[in-house]
């Protein structure tokens, strides 16, 4: 049995806590179903949601229990701590950000970001004190920047799923260097996505009513469940492949990092049994997290499509949003990778081929996005229903036309053009395409949310919407805080998965050759 030091108790608490949470989650669905029944409301949606989400949490608990029992509680022959794991020379550059002091440039950037974040916190306090009157929202434009940002950030969170999970399942070996940076984006940006909902609430102090009085007919509750599940799942999915890397860092670490790594590495020693358990858990998570991720942006789209408002009530919103999410997610990932590559000198690990392959995926998503958008607008225009055409005209030729056509250019014309050209194979090309895509996808979210609200079916007041300084500050604050947290992550954990790259370098070639041999007749 391993020594019972403080890390054991914290890990035990973590495991027990998570299991209790999973039980509580299941119980919560039961309680809400019973409460709905008592109130004479339909109880079936709660049961359906519970039947889907409940088991997911149980599976997550099972994975955590596997980690705890099979890795953390692993018996050692001598009862001593595991032997230190080595770091190869070419991997030094990966651990440099963790063990070396930050550069002046890094500190200066962080200082600027901190100022922006502090200003955003002030703006938020201002808003909480005075109410949403400080925004540009009004009757009938009840949603604006915050909901746009909510959808936008949740969309970007699909980066992690695609790269890590899907590429892992299809055994694409080039994923190895980039999975970590993708997964971190997901976990962090989900917080800001959900956070924007809190910013948008008229009564954020009552946000817990969602748990105390939740109604599952409402797509917002589907959002709550789905996003919470995705956040927990993604965090776990980030953590699992991080364990061996933390173990690698554990022995070189000094100061405050050492206890942290010791706690989080779960006593990993790199033995064969441990590797097996971990691979199994990661494989299950990879399969589990894909439908959850797809459901996340689908239910976000359902918030709009479940109403009867013109140009919201569209059947393709589910897949449209998922495609858009993956599209913006890949773009965000490319930008993040480019910045990391330049900032930390990771040219050896984040190579041109990674950008080229991601660029190809970006191109595919670009075409898919265009296909969906075209279908949506063609269908609306061809049907010609007056109330829909009012919104349509607002976007195509009215006050929102500049935003709309800018979106078309930045989401399709530029990325497509860049990515099919030779420039698309380079780092620079993909970064240019990604930058325009990020801008364009934000515009796309905005153009979905606001124009429909500007011209309601029965307008008492003509809508108009100009975001106020509070909304813009909070948007800037979300971005700056996200970047800050991301940067801080890179200084505590390696942003490229050390063991996976090492594994790839050592074993992948053989495996791939063997696999290819099975394709062709013997």
């Amino acid at each position, binding site marked *: 049995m391993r020594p019972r030091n403080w890390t054991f108790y914290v890990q035990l608490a973590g495991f027990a806590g998570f299991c209790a949470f999973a039980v509580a989650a299941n119980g919560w669905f039961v309680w809400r179903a019973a409460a709905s029944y008592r109130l004479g*409301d339909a109880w*079936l949606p709660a049961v359906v949601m519970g039947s889907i989400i409940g088991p997911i949490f149980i599976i997550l608990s099972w994975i955590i*229990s596997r980690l705890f029992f099979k890795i953390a509680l692993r018996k050692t022959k001598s009862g001593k701590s595991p032997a230190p794991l080595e770091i190869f020379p070419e991997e030094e550059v990966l651990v440099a950000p963790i063990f070396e002091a930050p550069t002046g440039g890094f500190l200066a950037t962080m200082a600027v970001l901190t100022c922006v974040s502090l200003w955003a916190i002030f703006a938020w306090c201002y808003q909480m004190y*005075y*109410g949403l009157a400080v925004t540009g929202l009004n009757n009938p434009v*009840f949603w604006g920047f915050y909901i746009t940002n909510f959808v936008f950030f949740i969309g970007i969170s699909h980066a992690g799923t695609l790269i890590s999970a899907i590429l892992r399942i299809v055994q694409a070996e080039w994923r190895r260097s980039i999975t970590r940076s993708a997964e971190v984006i997901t976990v962090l940006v989900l917080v800001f996505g959900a956070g924007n909902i809190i910013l948008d609430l008229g*009564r954020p102090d009552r946000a817990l009513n*969602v748990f105390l*009085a939740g109604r599952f*007919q409402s797509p917002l509750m589907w959002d709550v469940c789905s996003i919470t599940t995705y956040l927990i799942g993604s965090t776990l999915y980030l953590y699992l492949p991080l364990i061996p890397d933390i173990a690698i860092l554990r022995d070189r670490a000094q100061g405050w990092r050492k206890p942290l790594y010791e706690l989080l590495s779960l006593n990993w020693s790199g033995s064969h049994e441990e590797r097996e358990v971990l691979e199994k858990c990661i494989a299950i998570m990879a399969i589990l997290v894909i439908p959850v991720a797809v459901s996340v942006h689908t239910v976000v789209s359902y918030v709009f499509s479940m109403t009867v408002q013109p140009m919201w009530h569209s059947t393709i919103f589910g897949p449209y949003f998922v495609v858009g999410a993956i599209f913006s997610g890949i773009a965000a990932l490319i930008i993040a990778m480019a910045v990391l590559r330049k900032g930390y000198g990771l040219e050896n690990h984040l190579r041109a081929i990674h950008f080229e392959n991601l660029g190809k995926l970006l191109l595919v998503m670009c075409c898919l996005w265009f296909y969906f958008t075209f279908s949506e607008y063609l269908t609306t225009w061809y049907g010609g229903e007056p109330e829909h055409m009012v919104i349509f005209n607002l976007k195509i030729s009215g006050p929102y036309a500049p935003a709309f056509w800018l979106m078309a250019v930045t989401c399709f014309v530029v990325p497509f053009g860049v990515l099919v050209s030779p420039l698309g194979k380079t780092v620079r090309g993909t970064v240019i395409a990604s930058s325009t895509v990020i801008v364009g996808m934000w515009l796309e979210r905005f153009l979905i949310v606001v124009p429909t609200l500007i011209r309601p079916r029965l307008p008492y007041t003509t809508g108009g919407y100009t975001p106020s300084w509070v909304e813009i500050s909070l948007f800037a604050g979300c971005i700056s805080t996200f970047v800050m947290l991301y940067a801080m992550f890179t200084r505590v954990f390696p942003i490229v998965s050390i063991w996976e790259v090492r594994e790839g370098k050592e074993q992948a070639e053989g495996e791939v050759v063997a696999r290819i041999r099975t394709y062709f007749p013997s």
Partner: protein
Amino acid sequence: MESLTTSRNGFLRGLLGTLGVFLLSGIGKAWGTAPGDAGHGKRPLKPGEHRWGMVIDLDKCTGCGSCVVACSTENNLALGNPQEAAMGRIIRWLKILPSQEGEFPAPKQRLLPMPCQQCDTPPCTKVCPVYATFRNEEGIVGQVYSRCIGCRYCLNACPYTCKDFNWKAPVWPKEMQASFNPDVSIRPKGVVEKCLFCHHRLQRAKEEAVAEGRPLRENDYQPACAEICPAKAIVFGDLNNNDSDAANLSKDPRAFHLLEELGAEPKVTYLKEGA
């Protein structure tokens, strides 16, 4: 891997048990209820149960606006100011919706008083995440200020745009607080509010009826707008009572509903202008 097998078995057993329980507790009833419907669906109503509705005769209505002012006074509506008006943030539960067709020299105009349409299948109650808006047993779509989290989903889901939101805490000069109707609570910032068919008057009328030991009579309960209309264009009553004016007028050949095709089944009926 034993634990996995055990857990899978246990999980399956649990699932089967649940299904059995559903059958026992009448799952058929559950399927019959439509979302957003406070369990009343289309089942036949018990005798004595009211269904409150309103009929507005547009041929009598002159667009004078008394109904708006009476509603505002009765329900302690926030006063408003020019800045809020410019931003479109004035809260009026009953709005006179102008619609103009055509142009000079032969335009057409309709001034339509629009309260909450009190739908029988409200699009707004479907989407509330916290049960802060719901349809009660007598057909009035309620609003629970103390539970509303201000997400404004119901405001966006309402096709009539007849709900309002408190963008800030309403400001009342001290002197005017003396004229608050004590039956209606003052809403805090960040919550949704809307016409409730002066539900507080129904509560008082019921109280009185109980105190006097008699059933509720037709004209015991009238919302402020119906009471004050000088042209008597607003008729309010129990749609389940075949003798009531409201029930009869709602079946008039001139009757129509706003956005009827959306299927929200509003209980506010309009009688169109003309012969």
